[in-house]
């Protein structure tokens, strides 16, 4: 008698909608959508119990391409919108999908405070080191000498280091992935979603249109040579001294997730009036 493995309850395609992406052929974000759908299928989460929240940018178009509840908000504000949703509805799985401009430039302040607040969210930034939707301007992670119409000869600015900033601000889980490694990214996303508190996953996701040089990333990325640490100082030192292409889970913390104060038993609003009575 042969034993047949139980058929998986969910397929990756259950998480993908019929809306056709606006992304360019070859964009790394297609792979991120694929990784995400595989991760969610493996976790067997019900699509209706997942919310995908985003801001503005190429990568932020992703909610409509999933078959989950989605919110495509304004530029840079996906994190607070997602935090409000998660605090109001803690039983939902809330994913925040962003890009390097949305997440680190216009939304930079929210990034710091989302790490501090440690609401149980998974924050995925598809980093292509360029503003793609507006056709090729330097972002906070762009190299200082990258030439563009808006900043001829380069910005001359030091690139932002999101992983280290996340650590310094209190993120509870920090990882770097490469979009071309679909299964590796899916594995990391599963861990990130499962990890309590604020999980930050930076996915190097090439923009083949405005940054054709990023096609080379597939030859540069490599798995991190060491296991993740729970020591943020050690993790920060490793990340600051690596070549920028180490992938995998780099830090796993154990801070308690954000918990809003709660009454043991909610009372009728009428009790609030007593202190006003003369």
């Amino acid at each position, binding site marked *: 008698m042969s034993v047949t493995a139980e058929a998986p309850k969910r397929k990756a395609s259950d998480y993908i909608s019929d809306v056709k992406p606006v992304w360019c052929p070859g964009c790394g974000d297609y792979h991120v959508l694929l990784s995400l759908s595989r991760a969610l299928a493996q976790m067997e989460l019900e699509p209706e119990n997942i919310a995908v929240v985003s801001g503005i940018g190429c990568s932020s178009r992703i909610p409509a391409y999933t078959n989950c509840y989605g919110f495509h908000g304004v530029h840079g504000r996906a994190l607070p*919108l997602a935090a409000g949703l998660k605090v*109001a509805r803690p039983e939902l799985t809330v994913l925040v999908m962003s890009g390097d401009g949305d997440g680190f430039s216009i939304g930079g*302040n929210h990034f710091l*405070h989302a790490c501090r607040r440690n609401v149980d969210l998974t924050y995925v930034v598809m980093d292509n080191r360029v503003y793609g939707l507006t056709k090729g301007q330097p972002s906070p992670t762009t190299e200082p000498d990258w030439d563009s119409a808006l900043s001829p000869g380069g910005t001359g600015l030091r690139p932002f280091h999101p992983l280290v900033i996340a650590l310094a601000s209190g993120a509870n889980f920090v990882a770097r992935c490469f979009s071309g490694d679909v299964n590796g990214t899916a594995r990391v996303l599963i861990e990130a979603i499962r990890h309590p508190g604020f999980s930050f996953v930076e996915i190097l996701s090439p923009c083949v249109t405005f940054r054709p040089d990023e096609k080379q990333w597939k030859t540069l990325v490599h798995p991190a040579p060491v296991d993740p640490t729970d020591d943020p100082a050690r993790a920060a030192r490793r990340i600051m001294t690596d070549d920028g292409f180490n992938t995998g889970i780099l830090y796993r913390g154990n801070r308690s997730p954000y918990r809003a104060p709660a009454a043991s038993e909610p009372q009728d609003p009428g009790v609030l009036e007593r202190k006003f*009575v003369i």
Partner: protein
Amino acid sequence: MSAARPPSESLSVALLGSGGAGVLTAGALVTEIAARSGWYGFITRSVGPQIRGGEAAALVRLATRPVGCMDGAFDLLLAIDWNNADRFAAEIPLTPESIVVGDPKSGTPPDYVTQSGARFVEIPLAEIAKGLDGGRANMLAVGIVLGLAGIPGDRGAEAIRKQLSGKGEDIVTAGVATLEAGIAQTEAIADTPQLAAPPASSGERWLITGNEATGLGAVRGGIRFAAAYPITPATEVLEWLAPALTTVGGTLVQAEDELASINMAIGASFGGKPALTATSGPGLALMIEALGLATAAEVPIVVVDVMRGGPSTGIPTKSEQSDLNIAIYGCHGDAPHVVVAPLSVADCVFTTQWAVHLAEMLQGPVLVLSDQFLGQTKAIIDRPADLSFMTRRSVAAEIDAAKPYHRYATGEGGISAMALPGTPDGQYTADGLTHTPRGTPSSRGEDHVAQLDKRRDKIESHDYGAHWAEIDGDGDTVILCWGSLSSACLEAAAKLRAEGVAVRTIALRLLAPLNTARLGEALAGARRVLIVEQTHSGQFRRHLQGHVAFPGEVDVLARPGPLPITPGEIADYVQKWRS
């Protein structure tokens, strides 16, 4: 005690002194004692920009009926000291009828006091207080005000106990003794402005600030999530809501800025929790983009703007109605949304509760335009009735899996049922991009127009009932106002009526969408319409004239903050216009 003048239906008292002198506590006690003795009234405070110290004034108005605005002049001014008192010259107008009490050893009164012709009474406050066991000059001042106004001191102990709770019975005993010593000081003073007897008790009364009333209205309306970023003068709405929401099973989250707070509220409401944030002008400016998002994505939220002087940082501690333009017209694109304004401290409860109902019903943002005066004034009010609105958000609770769910379905009335995350087969993406009925991003003209029509129709076809305005009196002279200025206008109309002028007052609670049909009916037969507003540029007049053809002559009494527009000024303006 002594009296010669006829008793007055209203009495205005100013207590002033430098920081630490305790004038705000003294004013609060006078108000509390008057409240417990059956009078109506309110206390508002005037402070400098300093966080601690500096000079402060407690401005108290007591009356035999509910009052909601400053009077034109002060009957009593009591100064514990005169340090920097000249900065209050414009805020504490005095007349020859006024009585000024000062300590001869605590500096000299400023010119505006001496030149007002007010009767000056010297009482050595510091010296008398020093001679009493545990005596303090501010407690003595409380007694002096009570004595001059003819308010009995017998409710003093309970008021002190409430105001200074936790400081021990010794403080209460010393306080009562000092207060009585203060009353005794006034026995020899003749011809003081006595308050007429309080009205018979009409049921439960409250002592509440507009900001607290706003918080309570929000909770009554069903708000269970708030996001907060502190800003003067709105912070107390949020500070009141923090523990209150916890009590009723809700949550308040402190955000990193106003961009975050409004987006948190949108996120919570997308999840199904009625949500609110409160701010003032500078914060509202930051929230405008997300206000458009809530309009486009059709997410109910309430945004309370406790207005202050603007633009930019302006005068954070003073009232103005100058956020009207940004509240109604601030969004880019065509983004119709509801804007309402409470008409009094008590009305902050109802109007905020109504705002929650409208946001939930109409699935979009509703702005509540309160202001610093309403927000930070603590008033004695009759308990506001708890009106419950039966209609709630239209939620798609069960969805037919065989048909695609159309979150933004167009059709009669423009309201479409909203699926909440967790509902099987209801998955959609809420989007600020123009979208199809299904929610899919679209740049097609027909989708754009269909969704613009939908959003306009749902707020314009709603029946706002009788709440859109309060209309009082009759006559071919009309005073037209909104929000916080309503009390002053109603009082001006009463004054004019007493002078034989028939006046109609229309106080708008619903500012957008403007109820042009009902406003037209309310204006029928008007020969003169005076628009009264606390702005520099006449924002309200422009808003009205963009929508309404007035039947008669129109004039506007528009003045920016920080000084209040008083009933006397409005009445004089009308009289001059008529002659």
